[in-house]
């Protein structure tokens, strides 16, 4: 079990392996699997993708951790494992507290319904009771700042508006462990600032935040600690600025380059 530290752990990941079998065949249809029976050998050539290879770390409760790494390094897979969505192939994940995954914006939202109706739907999706959602209704509406658009069907929303509402729902529903995957990149500058303030506020209330972003500036300002994943392996688990500097050095990107830091 996790080692004793000054803060109790919120997330504990122990030698986590996740492998997928990615096949070059199309969708798994009946025809394909019948044909496959005759072509066993060819099927065995299906590529085995090792998305995570023996990753171990521990996150104390109330901490903000960043996850950095190239595309395909296993960042989203890691978050999905912590949320209990993907079963590990080997190893173990333990989480203390309710996990609110913000892996993709507006999960559970129905585009035909109004923003107001979707607040309830989004809250129920992350596992809250209707009463809990209703108690936060006004604050969410206020935070999203959509004005009259809240009573329009969400198919009329721009992607920015969609993201604002999704984020507003996620952060106001008393998350204990919040997983954020590239969610901040949708909003405009002022909304982004609002989100960062909100995340800091959540941390003061002992909420643990794990944030994946290619916008390293976001990670740098928010996260105290960083996990650097490289091709499925844990490359570094250290204070955020150290990890980001090392990542830049490796990737040979000039740190002052605005494009790398900013969300593009």
């Amino acid at each position, binding site marked *: 079990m996790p080692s004793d530290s000054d803060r109790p752990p919120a997330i*504990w990941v122990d030698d986590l392996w996740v492998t997928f079998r990615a096949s070059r065949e199309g969708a*798994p249809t009946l*025809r394909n699997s019948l044909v496959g029976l005759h072509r066993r050998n060819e099927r065995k050539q299906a590529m085995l993708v090792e998305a995570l290879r023996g990753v171990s770390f521990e996150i104390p409760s109330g901490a903000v951790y960043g996850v950095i790494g190239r595309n395909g390094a296993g960042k989203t897979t890691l978050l999905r494992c912590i949320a*209990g*969505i993907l079963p590990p192939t080997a190893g*173990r994940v*333990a989480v203390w507290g309710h996990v609110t995954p913000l892996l993709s914006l507006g*999960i559970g939202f129905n585009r035909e319904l109004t923003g107001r109706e979707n607040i*309830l739907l989004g809250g129920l999706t992350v596992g809250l009771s209707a009463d809990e959602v209703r108690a936060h209704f006004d604050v969410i509406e206020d935070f999203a700042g959509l004005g009259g658009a809240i009573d329009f069907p969400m198919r009329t929303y721009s992607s920015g508006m969609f993201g604002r509402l999704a984020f507003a729902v996620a952060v106001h529903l008393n998350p204990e462990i919040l997983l954020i995957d590239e969610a901040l990149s949708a909003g405009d500058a002022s909304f982004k600032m609002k989100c960062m303030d909100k995340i800091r506020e959540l941390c003061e209330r*002992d909420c643990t935040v794990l944030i994946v972003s290619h916008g390293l500036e976001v990670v740098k300002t928010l996260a105290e600690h960083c996990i650097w994943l490289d091709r499925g392996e844990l490359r570094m688990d250290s204070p955020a600025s150290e990890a980001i500097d090392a990542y830049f050095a490796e990737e040979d990107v000039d740190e002052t380059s605005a494009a790398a830091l900013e969300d593009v």
Partner: protein
Amino acid sequence: MSASSIRMPSVYEATESGLPPMRRYIRDLRERRRFIWHLARTDLKGKNYGTVIGQSWIILDPLLSAGVYFFFRSVVKSAGTGNARALILSHLIWGVFFFTFTQNSMNYGARSLIAGRGLILNASFPRAVLPLVAIVKGMLDFLPTLAIYGVFHAILGQPFGLSLLSLLIVIPILTVFNMGVIFIMAAANVFFRDTANFLPYLTRLWLYMTPVLYSTKEIPANLKVYLRWNPLYPFFGALEQIFGAQFPSAGYLLAATAWAVGFFVVGSLIFLAKEREFAVRL
């Protein structure tokens, strides 16, 4: 010390595919009942949003089908006059309405996991939520049609009696049966994506093998031997008795219950055993 250090953690480990701990699973499902209800309602609301007649399609669709089948029947063979025709027409209407319940359940079920792909990949909840949403949707589509049939039953001068109360037994059994069908369809469609494409043919074949467009009395004895092994046969046999103001026979009810329990147990076990694989397969 904060409370979180004392609390038991949720642990995710590599386990062989097998059944999840049942007691905890059912508790989690119960906690999600509002979500199931809301998801079903909003899905249906969204589905009929774009059409002019909107929600009334739920009733119009099976009613128009019944009309077409009646026309078809009259062409093949004279539907008779007066009472005989009224009986045929009422049988067709309730038959199509009840069959549509099973048919809709199958369609919603087969598509439930693929349609809920975003939810499955990005949120953690007992996956049986999605098939349950499918049965609630099927139910919400079905109940209004039952009320409409009541009106036709009166207009067509069919008998009313206490036996109609037996519907309160047959409908729950049929719902359990449909639930089993949904579990099977939902899991099958993840592993064989074209299951949903086969469905229209499968349901049509099933329709013709079930006493929906004809009554059980019209089936020749040499065919009845085979047709009575159709799982829906005892349901429609019992319904025929009920709408004819008779109490359903014990034989039909027992057979229907056996099919319902069988389908439900097999379907839910398959679903639960495979559920952890869904996120990887989708």
